[in-house]
């Protein structure tokens, strides 16, 4: 599903941020990406989203080589991924419904279909009935769940979460993780960057550990 093949990312100023990273995530697999600050977690995620391009090596998503995707094709590639952020990245002047509907509107779905899918996604994260609220009117955990609903509403085969529980208390974090496991059960691949060791250790999933740009463990 997602395959890194000897990926190196070098910035002219800082040198190699990632060095010869190789791993392969199967469809329906959950993996935690962990490591100290500056280990290259964020860079790795950026490479998957093609916000950056790797200096050497290849990344394959669903058999598609990411380093040669044209700029004009990037939007269509990104519709295959759902991104979840620590700071939620919601549109603060739009309702919960509009936030979740955004990827569908972009993909060109009709009104009826959008309504149906948004409700299904909000139902999944337990926010049905809050469609008309603005994000600010919700708690942190609820906002994060809006972000998750937005990431999964388009049914992407890959979900990438960057510190999704960074701003949440342990109880809420556990809830969020349960959600990810539910997505996994329907065949979605989930990659979670986190340094919440206690949370990671509670869950029995694959662990990718980065240390100074090198992948030191991939079990």
């Amino acid at each position, binding site marked *: 599903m997602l*395959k890194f*093949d*000897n990926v190196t990312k070098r910035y002219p100023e800082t040198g190699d941020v990632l060095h010869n990273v190789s791993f392969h995530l199967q469809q329906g697999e959950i993996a935690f990406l962990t490591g100290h600050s500056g280990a290259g977690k964020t860079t790795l995620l950026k490479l998957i*989203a093609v*916000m950056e391009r790797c200096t*050497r*090596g*290849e990344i*394959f998503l*669903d*058999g*598609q*080589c990411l*380093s*040669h*995707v044209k700029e*004009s*094709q990037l*939007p*269509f*590639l*990104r*519709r*295959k991924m759902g*991104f979840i952020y620590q700071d939620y*990245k*919601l*549109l603060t002047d739009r309702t919960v419904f509009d936030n979740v509907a*955004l*990827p569908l*509107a*972009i*993909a*060109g*779905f*009709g*009104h009826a*279909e959008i309504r149906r899918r948004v409700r299904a996604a909000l139902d999944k994260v337990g926010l049905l009935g809050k469609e008309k609220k603005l994000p600010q009117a919700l708690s942190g955990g609820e906002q994060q769940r809006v972000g998750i609903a*937005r990431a999964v509403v*388009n049914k992407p085969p890959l979900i990438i979460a960057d510190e999704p529980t960074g701003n949440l208390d342990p109880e809420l974090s556990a809830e969020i993780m349960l959600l990810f496991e539910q997505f996994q059960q329907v065949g979605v691949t989930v990659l979670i960057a986190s340094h919440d060791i206690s949370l990671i250790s509670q869950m029995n999933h694959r662990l990718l550990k980065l240390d100074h740009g090198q992948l030191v463990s991939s079990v």
Partner: protein
Amino acid sequence: MKPVKRRSTREVPAKPPVKHHEIRQTRTAGGDFTDKLHAYRDHHAHALFSSLGRLVATPFTTIMTIAVLAISISLASGFYIMVINVQQLTADLESSNQISLFLKDEVSNEDAADLAADIQKNSNVQAVKMISKEQALAEFKTYSGFGAAIDVLEKNPLPIVLQVLPKNTLQDKQQLENLFKTVKQFDEVDYAQVDMQWVDRLQSMVEVARRGTALFSFMIGLGVLFIIGNTIRLELHNRRDEIMIAKLVGATNSFIRRPFLYTGFWIGFISGVSAWFIVALLMLILRQPVEKLSGLYEGDLHLIFLSVTDTLALLAISSLLGIFSSWAVLLFQLRHTRPE
């Protein structure tokens, strides 16, 4: 697809790299063709009205921008309509190449009539009209508004005038010149004048004004482009986060551009409509004095207003300027807006 370069030597991917049809599958994921079409229409309608809504939501900024644009556009269209009006005036005069002969004071009405008959015999002359001293005075009293002042004069100061209208065939300037020289030589003639001369002058002045208006409108158009462009740039800046998020969830540049293009359209269109009203107001204010002036000159000059075609052109040009300047700004700015 191009073969993959820089591939690692150790492993070859199981599946071929980028497949275009795979990407397209995602593209058409929204249902069948009619559904897509309806959705497309819905999104355009949404972008159209939400961009208007955004303008209304910030009334102060919007009014300031539109006021500047409307005044600029109304200046250009005001000059345009002024030239049109002066042009209609000279169009009436275009056929007139009449020669006026002002006779000496001592010439009597009878002698003048004889002279008129003489001139009438010339093969190049179509008609000669005599205006006697009395007729001239009566006309002057009626139209000048100096009636009472004229009454004070003991003697009629106005000369007899013979208006010589050359044949229509006499378009050639040289022939007209010859006729002018012939009629000027009569002893009774004090002063002769071809009306052609000032018509020529007026027409060249109108031509200068027309070109000037074209240049002026061009400069105004450029100004409008920059003003709208700057407004869109600020709007882009304000909505930067939204653009980033939209890009991350797979928005194409055309999806991101759409609401901004509609914003540009609305700004241009509303400015055009406002400019039309400004011109209309100015014309209403000017109408009465112009018609009075026209009356004084015995003319039937009626103020021409912007025609339906002119109005449509005004609205189309302002809207297009709005769309074009947004498009240009987006072209440059979106290239530098990458998700972070």
